């Protein structure tokens, strides 16, 4: 005896009707339009990374690693990128990198403002939280099908799936970072007559930046873990190498793709973590952080840390 003896709910039919007969016919143009910005950012990045010669790219990334994370990471970056090139996966790696950066870019553009708004309004946070919980717990295969129905197959749908998967941490940590700014600092900013914008820009955002950077790092790692799944719906790059290897029972090919993903993940993780940790020594503005990255004078890592 169970409730199903009395009533069966045709839940899957409902969802089918909702998606196939209402959302897809009515909203397909809207969703198609949504992928325009994603495609354009992606195409631009992809063209750029495939245009830059391997040697130049490796040198610049190693320099960035040296400036932010120190000598060890710089050497690792150099060796790892050479290895990827020598196993013949350079173009795939660049495609994956541009996909990852596109997803992370949109995660930041969406996630940071949402996190800030959620930090300012308890009501909005009450709504946002369960949505984030669902985004994090729902298996990504579940939303692959509707995404294909709405967006078709290809790179852009793959990136949209990645954005859905990688968005929650940056929203959560932006919210946390802003909420954790000391209450007396907020009071002080208010007591001197700051407008809400001044409060955000002068006090809350710079002080939350470290936590937001931790969120960015998490988002980046989640985006990397999606590349193989995104390959299922037509995204290219290293994910496709792994997926093809899997299909053909080609252990070597799949492993090569996998190693490429891992190496790329380690490099990006170390660099973004180091960017976050710099805040610990001295909290600097975002602009200064990027300025120090691109400063031509190569200072020793220790000096860079103490100076900025």
């Amino acid at each position: 005896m169970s409730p199903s003896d009395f009533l069966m709910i045709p839940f899957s039919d409902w969802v089918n009707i909702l998606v196939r007969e209402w959302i897809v016919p009515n909203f397909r143009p809207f969703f198609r339009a949504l992928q325009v910005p994603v495609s354009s950012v992606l195409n631009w990045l992809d063209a750029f990374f495939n245009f830059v010669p391997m040697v130049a790219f490796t040198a610049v990334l190693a320099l960035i690693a040296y400036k932010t994370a120190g000598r060890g990471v710089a050497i690792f970056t150099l060796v790892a990128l050479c290895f990827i090139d020598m196993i013949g996966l350079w173009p795939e790696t660049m495609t994956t990198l541009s996909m990852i950066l596109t997803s992370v870019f949109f995660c930041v553009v969406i996630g940071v403002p949402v996190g800030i708004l959620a930090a300012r309004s308890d009501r909005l946070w009450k709504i946002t939280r369960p949505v984030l919980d669902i985004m994090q717990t729902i298996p990504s295969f579940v939303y692959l099908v509707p995404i294909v129905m709405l967006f078709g197959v290809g790179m852009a749908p793959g990136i949209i799936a990645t954005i859905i998967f990688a968005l929650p941490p940056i929203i959560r940590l932006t919210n946390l970072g802003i909420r954790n700014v000391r209450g007396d600092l907020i009071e002080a900013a208010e007591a001197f007559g700051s407008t809400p914008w001044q409060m955000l820009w002068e006090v809350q955002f710079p002080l939350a930046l470290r936590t937001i950077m931790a969120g960015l790092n998490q988002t980046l790692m989640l985006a990397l873990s999606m590349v193989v799944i995104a390959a299922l719906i037509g995204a290219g790059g290293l994910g496709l190498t792994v997926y093809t290897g899997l299909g053909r029972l080609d252990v070597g090919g799949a492993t090569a793709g996998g190693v490429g993903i891992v190496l790329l993940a380690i490099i990006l993780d170390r660099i973004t973590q180091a960017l976050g940790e710099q805040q610990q020594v001295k909290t600097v503005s975002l602009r200064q952080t990027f300025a120090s990255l691109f400063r031509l004078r190569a200072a020793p890592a220790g000096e860079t840390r103490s100076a900025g």
Partner: protein
Amino acid sequence: MKAKLKVENVFKIFGDAPQDAVERLKRGEDKKTILEQTGQTVGVQDVSFEVPEASIFVVMGLSGSGKSTLVRMLNGLIKPSSGSILIDGDDVASCSAETLRNIRRNKIAMVFQHFALFPHKSVLENAAYGLKVKGVSAAERRKRGLEALERVGLDGYAESLPSALSGGMQQRVGLARGLATEPQILLMDEPFGALDPLIRREMQDELLALQKSLRKTIIFITHDLNEALLLGDRIAIMKDGRFVQVGTAQEIVANPADDYVAAFVADIDRGRVFTAETVANAPESVQLATDTAETAMQSMEDLNRNALYVLDGEEIAGVVTYQDLSTAVRENNGDLASALITDFPSVEGDAHLNTLYGPASAGLPIAVTDETNRLVGVVEPEAVFAQLSGDETSQGETPADTAPVAPARTVAPETA
């Protein structure tokens, strides 16, 4: 002088039905009953006061007495449940956000207990924060920020981060930040509470020195009665959200309103509160040229004193004691000058009693003088100790009528 800040019947209730609690308070129910029956917490109840321009008003109370809530209502960080807070006629409690922001930018600044410096900004940027918010240009900000830092003696640290400074120095930055916008009103929420006793003492003296030139209207919150008595032109003692007593340091120490205030006052150093004027007798004296030893002794007997000051015209020539005079009568034919002690102790009228211990040890009455060095009063050594012990009856030895008059005289110029 007109009031810079006027607070009228302010209530603050924390809870979801503040008006109900305000009604109950007005009916005479107490804080505890209201909390038990309605779950509303009374922060501040029925507080009214005025602060005249350029004076220091100290609110003293223990933690939970509502003093921090009160000071936060003065610049609108907390909205009062009822009542009005007028700064130059604008009601902080009910004005628009825009007006409130302008008041905060131009008229009222705040110094915080735990400094509340922005850790990501340099000392100079911290000091100039109020100016930046106001939209002052970068060059002007730098100039005025440095001026403010110079005033608190920190101009050498402009580019350091606050974390590189000690607690005392950090609070100087907090003070510089408060002064940089040149507000007329400065709110200080237990500014020295987080500092070591020695640094605290130093900062208190410095604040008083600064106040002499700045002449701000200061509302100072503290839990330390000694600090309150040292700094305050007027002092309010706060308990359970209401003012128990408001008055000058001397009024509070001399006449505590209830047992609660009396318990506080019992522990304080009365020598730092009362001045020479409060224990001075009338400046009775004899003239060197016209009086003789006999007439001087006669005056002492009439006044019931053992020594008298001798004036040469307007100038103080010295002091004579009854004992020396009687010797003079026997041996020097009553020559007043022969018994004259020219090495006499003297103090200014506003000297605190704790500076009188040395002069009093000579056993001679102490001359109280004004700026032009004229005799305005005489302090008997016994009177100093009678005042310190707080024992009113022992003052019977000194003419009682001068004692109540004297404090009034010292109070008037400070508050007016």
